[in-house]
C-alpha cells in the first residue's frame, strides 16, 4: 500500500518513512507542498496521505482540498500539526481530513493510527 508523506522537515520525513517502511508500506516522499501536488497530479491518489500543515509553496490544507475537491478521492488523510495550530487542524477537518497528530509525536502512535485508517 502506498503512502504519500508531505513534510518539509527532512528529519521528520526520514523518521516517518523509516517507521512506515518497517510496517510494510511503500512510501513516497514530498519535501514541500508543490512536490506533493505534482505527485497527485501525475500519479493520482495513493492509498493514504500524511501531510504537514505548514509547508513551502502549498500548505497541507491545500493538499487536503485538492484530494477531496479536485480529485474527489476518499483516501484517508492524516494531518501533522505543530502545537498551537488548532485552528488549522479544524480547517483541515472541515476540508475532509480524517485524523491529525501533533508534533512532537510518538512514531508508534502514528503507526497505530495509520493501521486503523487503513483497516489493517
Amino acid at each position, binding site marked *: 500500500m502506498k503512502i504519500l508523506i508531505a513534510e518539509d*522537515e*527532512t*528529519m*521528520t520525513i*526520514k*523518521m516517518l518513512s*523509516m*517507521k512506515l517502511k*518497517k510496517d510494510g508500506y511503500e512510501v513516497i516522499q514530498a519535501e514541500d507542498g508543490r512536490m506533493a501536488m505534482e505527485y497527485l497530479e501525475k500519479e493520482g491518489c495513493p492509498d493514504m496521505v500524511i501531510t504537514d500543515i505548514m509547508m513551502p509553496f502549498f500548505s497541507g490544507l491545500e493538499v487536503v482540498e485538492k484530494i477531496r475537491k479536485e480529485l474527489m478521492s476518499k483516501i484517508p488523510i492524516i494531518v501533522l500539526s505543530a502545537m498551537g495550530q488548532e485552528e488549522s487542524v479544524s480547517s483541515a477537518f472541515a476540508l475532509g481530513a480524517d485524523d491529525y497528530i501533533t*508534533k*512532537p*509525536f*510518538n*512514531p*508508534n*502512535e502514528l503507526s497505530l493510527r495509520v493501521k486503523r485508517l487503513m483497516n489493517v
Partner: protein
Amino acid sequence: MLLLSLIGSDLQTKLIIFSVIFCCAVCAIFFISYFFSLLVQRRENEIQRIRNERESLLVTLLFDDNSEEFNDDILGGFEEFKPISKGNSLSKKKRKMLRELMIDEMLTIKKNLTGAGVEDLYKLYDKLNLYHDSYRKLTSNHFQLMVMGIRELSEMNFIAYYRSVYRCTNHPQEDVRMEAQVAIVRLFGVKGLKFLSRVTYTISEWQQMTLLHLLNNMKNVKPQGIDQWLDSKNDSVVVFSLRLAEKYNCFELLEKIQHFLHHPNDTIKIQSVLCMRNIYDESTESQLLAYYLVVNKPVRIAILDVLQSLATEQSTEFLYKQLADDDMEIRLNILRVLHKLFDNVDIINSITLEPEKEDSIILMLDHIKNE
C-alpha cells in the same frame, strides 16, 4: 618600477598604465572572491552531506529493531565516535565539528519525537559520550557556549552534571542564568524550583512565563517551598511564587497573600490581587472593595479583573458609584464586572450619571457584549 616609469611619461601613457593596473586589481579581486566563495560553498556542501549522513544514521539507529543496544557495526563506520587513539585519522578539530553536528541533529530530532524514541535518543547521547562535549561547553568562558552546553545536557536529560547546571541558576550573566533555571526545571520538574531559594538576580517577566509554560507540560504536583519563597528578599521571586500559589491553588497561603496587598512594590500588590482569582474566602470580595479605594489605577484594574469572577450583588452599589470615575479604562472594567452580574438593559436603567457619561457607557456595554 611601474611607478618610476610613470613619473617621466606623458599623460596618455600614464592613463594606459593606470587602466592596466586597475583592470588587474579588479580581476584579482574577482578571482579571490570567486575562489573564497567556492571554498565556502564546498564547505557548506560538505557540512550538508555530513548532516544528511548523520540524520540517516540517527533514524536507522533509533528505528532499528535492535535499537536497544544500538548497532555497533553501524556506529563503527563513524570515526568521530571511536576513542581518540594513534590510529584515529580524524583531526581534533574535525572530530569536534562532527560530534557537534551529531548533537545538533539529536536536538532537531528531539523536537519532533515523543515516546520510546526519545528514551533511545537519550541512551544514544550517553553511549556516544556526547555529554563530554556538552560539559566542555558548559565549563567554557564564553556565555554563548555555556548556554549551549546547558541546553544540550538538559534536552538530552543528562542528570550527572546537574550540580554544575544548578550553580549557574544564579549566574551573573542573564542568558546563562535563564537557561540554567529552565534546564533545572526541565530535568527535575517542580523539584527544580529549589533554585528560587538562592536566586538573587531578578527573574524577568519573560522567564517567569517560560518557567510556568514548562510546568504546565509537567505532572501537576504542588511544589514544596512556596511558603518560604514568598518570604524572599528578591521581589521577582515573590511575584513568581504568587503565580505558583495561584497555579497550584495554595489555599493555605491565603492569609500570607492578603498581607502582600500592603507591600510597597506595586507588581507584588497586583500579583497578590490576581492570585485571589483562585485563592479566596467569603471575606475576599469585601476586602477587595475596601482596598480598591486606597490603591492606584493599575491595582484597581487588577481588582476589577478579579471581581469579574468573584463579584456578587454585594458589590453592585459600590460598582455603580465607581462608574462616576473620570478614567475610561476604569469605567470599562467596572462595566465588565457588572456585565457578568446583570443584563445590559438592567445596567443602563440603574445608572444615574451625566448624559455624556451615560452615552459612553452605552457604547462600552455594546463593545463588552461583542467581546
